[in-house]
């Protein structure tokens, strides 16, 4: 659907909030807590599709609110929103999707976020009816921006400006049996949290992760496509999926974050570097499939059946 940028607010030099609404003010599809939308953004040479959490509450149907950090290695998406987008612009926005909904059977929720990873939790805290605790970690200079997005005076919401201050071990060891853990933030932040959780005996079913937007950059590699007969180069800062799309192909994709499994393609030769959260360990070991949205290659070349 085409949505118009109604308003832009500058929360910090690198963080902006956008209000999106339909031209005719028609009600938008409901976006539940943790949902995101894919927004198509024009770039220099091609357009990009980025996932942004809908931070307005699930009851809000007259507009979607998204909060966007300008990525330092922006491929064009967040740079466009920060440098060129103005109120009145129209953007192609997909239907809300949700791979990060809060558990309905959890008695309590422990939310851990780093940096812009706070965004899915902004809708959580408006929705949760069961007790929750939110710990947010950010750079000191970003504190006012994030503090402004959070309700003030809540004792169950804590902002940390120093990673040392937030001891995952202590926090995770103190949780009751009915607690679920949710984590969204930079890859190393999440790996630290989940590593501590697993060490303390947290079961997988109570660990929830959101990881879209963490573009996995890596070494340059080449992909040979058997069915289409094309050869595509994947540059360091772009994903395999982006490279396939830039070559004019229409490979399957949905979440673009390694979660949903939609973009799986068969691997005929070469060894993929798996970065997704979809394939099981035994499937990974076979090296016969790749999630094009986040995974790359250990070998300089891959042959895909596509």
């Amino acid at each position, binding site marked *: 659907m085409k949505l118009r940028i109604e308003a832009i607010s500058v929360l910090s030099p690198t963080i902006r909030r956008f209000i999106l609404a339909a031209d005719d003010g028609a009600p938008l599809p409901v976006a539940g807590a943790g949902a995101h939308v894919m927004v198509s953004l024009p770039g220099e040479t091609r357009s990009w599709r980025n996932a942004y959490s809908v931070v307005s509450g699930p009851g809000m149907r007259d507009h979607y609110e998204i909060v966007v950090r300008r990525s330092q290695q922006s491929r064009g998406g967040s740079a466009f929103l920060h440098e060129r987008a103005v109120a009145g612009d129209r953007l192609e926005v997909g239907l809300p999707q949700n791979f990060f909904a809060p558990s309905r059977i*959890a*008695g309590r929720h422990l939310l851990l976020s780093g940096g812009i990873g706070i965004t899915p939790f902004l809708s959580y805290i408006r929705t949760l009816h069961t007790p929750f605790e939110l710990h947010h970690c950010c750079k000191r200079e970003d504190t006012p921006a994030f503090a402004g997005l959070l309700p003030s005076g809540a004792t169950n919401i804590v902002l940390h400006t120093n990673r040392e201050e937030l001891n995952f071990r202590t926090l*995770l*060891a*103190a*949780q*009751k*049996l*009915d*607690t679920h853990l949710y984590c969204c933030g930079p890859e190393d932040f999440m790996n630290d949290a989940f590593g501590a959780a*697993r060490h*303390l*005996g*947290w*079961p*997988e*079913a*109570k660990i929830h992760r959101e990881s879209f937007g963490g573009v996995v950059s890596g070494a340059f590699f080449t992909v040979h496509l058997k069915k289409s007969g094309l050869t595509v180069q994947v540059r360091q800062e772009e994903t395999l999926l982006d490279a396939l799309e830039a070559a004019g192909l229409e490979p399957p994709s949905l979440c673009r974050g390694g979660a949903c499994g939609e973009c799986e393609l068969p691997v005929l030769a070469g060894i993929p570097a798996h970065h997704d959260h979809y394939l099981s360990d035994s499937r990974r070991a076979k090296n016969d499939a790749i999630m094009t949205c986040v995974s790359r290659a250990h070998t300089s070349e891959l042959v895909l059946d596509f």
Partner: protein
Amino acid sequence: MIKSRPLYRPFTLDVSGRAHLVVTDQPELPEMVDLPSVDLEIFTVQTVSSEIEAPVDGNRRAFHAVVDLLAHLPRRLANDKIGLRIYAIGTEAFVWDVHNIARAAGLGSAEIHLTHAGSLRRRVYCAHCKTMSEDVTDNIVLCPGCGASLLVRDHFSRRLAAFMGVKVDAEIPGEIPAAESLYQ
């Protein structure tokens, strides 16, 4: 074998856990349980008639009745921290009672391990008046609630921790086959 009939595994330690609580409806853990050399907390049931021994160590606690153990468990779990694994060893009714208490306390299926040990006796749920009969060893039982003769089916309800009993003479009233003692 019907689908509702649960399958049980022998006791093995779930090494992903940080702490372990083993509960049994028997005075001692069955011999098949090969205790690993990690810190385990163990709850047993030693009825008054059984020989009462002092706790082997601080991690062992003996209750005088199954109901006492089951009544204590929710209070215990309410104060526990995540990372716990619970292991129930005993009759089917007991292990599923423990399972349901653990689920209510917030444990998930991956954190609960059930092992069937000891008697095959069944808890039977009357499909007509909802009365439970405990410790049923015959395949036909007189319902203490409505007086019907119930055929004990293999259909098992995990929610009720009971097997279903249905009127055995529903088609031809009064025609009740001889009961067999199948669930010792």
